[in-house]
């Protein structure tokens, strides 16, 4: 029987500031000497993954990401654009207002005022761009690990927000390999993967406006957990997934013949719907530590089980050899002397 060629992929889910948990996860991978062949990420997972893909070596990346997250916690990670913030908030409030007819008037007015900028957000991507330029330069990304991001084609802030709230399931995930794009679009697609509606602008790549991958494939969390390109394009046989949500709907059993290890945060790690926006030092440290502890425990438990199997294989192999040797010797004393 020919052994199947095997490949390890790592999936980093999205979750805003909860992405610090992934820094702890990578620290655990580093300690266990795990080195992947390909990566995929969505949203903050795309940002973390871009550094991982560019730097390649897990040990370096683990230390680097810990530093990046501490820097983010001590600096202004989310920067508001005041004008954009005002315009978007007005639109959402109007939509949910009991005075729906008034909304139409407001929308018409704001649309005229904004000049059809319905896919804009209130935050600037400058801090994220700085991280990309410093830790994931384009030339390193090109030579780095194969790296995919999950993105959703934007349908405007309103629909995108409904998708974000789980009220619309119309979004479809596009899985794009960063290295397949031209250099100008590489950062764009990574930023698009993290572009939540209302907060960030949709990003245009190859003529399409993209937003956060978490907005699509909600039934199986396929957008926020982009395993698909690693299995279908990279033929990964082993996948380690780091989730950032409690109770993710990702269904491992949809992926036959793929060995999947899921790292899910210990219940209670994240306690608020606003956690994705909490780039505070206390939370960041806590989540990095929790990500490390959870990953170490889950991976060690899993490896212990696999270890048991392989120890059994080894001992059976040795006993097979010993018995074969015993039989081959044909120990016998001649009758005559």
């Amino acid at each position, binding site marked *: *029987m020919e*052994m*199947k*060629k*095997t*490949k*390890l992929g790592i999936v980093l889910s999205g979750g805003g500031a909860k992405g610090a948990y992934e820094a702890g996860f990578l620290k655990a991978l580093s300690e*266990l*000497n*795990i*080195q992947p*062949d390909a990566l995929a990420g969505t949203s903050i997972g795309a940002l973390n993954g871009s550094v991982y893909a560019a730097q390649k070596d897990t040990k370096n990346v683990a230390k680097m990401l810990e530093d990046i997250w501490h820097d983010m916690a001590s600096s202004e990670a989310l920067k508001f654009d005041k004008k954009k913030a005002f315009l978007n908030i007005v639109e959402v409030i109007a939509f949910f207002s009991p005075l729906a007819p008034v909304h139409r008037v407001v929308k018409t007015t704001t649309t005229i005022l904004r000049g059809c900028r319905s896919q804009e957000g209130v935050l600037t991507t400058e801090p994220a761009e700085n991280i990309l330029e410093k830790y994931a330069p384009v030339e390193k990304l090109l030579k780095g690990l194969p790296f995919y991001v999950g993105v959703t084609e934007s349908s405007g802030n309103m629909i995108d927000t409904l998708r974000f709230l*789980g*009220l619309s399931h119309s979004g479809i995930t596009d899985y794009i390999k960063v290295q397949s794009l031209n250099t100008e679009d590489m950062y764009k697609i990574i930023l698009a993967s993290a572009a939540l509606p209302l907060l960030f602008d949709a990003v245009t790549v190859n003529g399409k406006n993209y937003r956060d991958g978490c907005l699509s494939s909600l*039934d199986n969390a396929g957008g926020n957990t982009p395993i698909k390109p690693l299995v279908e394009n990279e033929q990964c*046989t*082993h996948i380690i997934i780091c989730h950032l949500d*409690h*109770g*993710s*709907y990702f*269904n*491992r*059993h949809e992926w036959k*013949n*793929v*060995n*999947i*290890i*899921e*790292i*899910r*945060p210990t*219940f209670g790690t994240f306690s608020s719907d606003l956690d994705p926006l909490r780039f505070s030092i206390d939370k960041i440290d806590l989540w990095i530590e929790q990500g490390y502890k959870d990953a170490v425990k*889950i991976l060690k*438990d*899993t*490896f212990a*089980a*696999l*270890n048991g*199997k*392989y*120890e*059994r*294989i*080894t001992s*059976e*192999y040795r*006993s*097979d050899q010993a*018995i074969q040797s*015993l*039989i081959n010797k044909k*120990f*016998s*004393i001649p*009758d005559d*002397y």
Partner: protein
Amino acid sequence: MSKKYKIVQAFNLPVEYETLEQIEETHNYISDKLILDAVNGVNVVARDLHEVSKLRQSWLQRTTDTLFGNSKKRQDLINENLIEGLNACSQWLQDHDQHISRIDHKISIVASELSRTQDEILKFYAQHQTLKSRVTELKEVFFEFETSTKQQISYLRDYIRNIDIRTQAMDALDLEISRLTANKYDTLALPLQIYTALDNIKSGYGGMYYDSLTNEKEKKEFQERIANEFITHFKSKCDLDSYMDYEQLAEKISTLQPIQKDSLAFISTQHYNTMITNNGYPEATDLVSIMTSYEKNVALQEVDKKSNIANFITYNDYLTVTLQEHLKA
């Protein structure tokens, strides 16, 4: 090295690549995926979903979860993970059952080999007992063999040594005949020539060879050989059957250099004493000893007194007597 093995290494799994390849050719083991479904799918995934499910207890949460189908989706995932986990456990058990069956089979092979080995050892023990009973017999055989071998070796050693000494003895005889032929002893009277040549043979390898002989026949052959060589040489110089003239002998001795005379006196006297000690009966030796030890007249008187010295003796007899006295003393 295959990539799978690299992953296995990364996971710190204690299995050699070659082992993995060989063992997978012969045995079917539970797949890694099923183990992951059992361990990770149940302990991590189902537990996580269950924890979320337990938390959403408020009226509003239950209503929204029902309304948007989240509770069903969550429960379906819990169920699926549990079912797959149980399925994996069931296959894992089967895998272990098969493994245990293989172990049982191996135990039966080992037990069978052990039993056979036990039989062989018992057979060996029986053989050993038989051998033990024959040890005394073998010991005697070995002793006889050792003795016989020693004798053979001793015989061979003697044989080789005798061959060597015999050659030397014959060379010594040839040397003396050559000296006689070359007139080296011409200053001596004929009886003294005989005595001196025989003494040289006896004092060297000739005597050694004669003493080493245990066979009387061989001794006699050697003695006859010397006698024949001497007779052949001396018969051309004189009539060997004529009687020796003691006065002429004494006269001739008196003309010798003192050192020659003293030497002959010393040698013959020593020879005489040895023969007396060994209960021999010296005649020719005593004659030479007296003749070379005294002045002419005294010597003749002394010879005349000696009953062991014949008054009339032919050269031939003198040769025979001298030869015997040399070889025996």
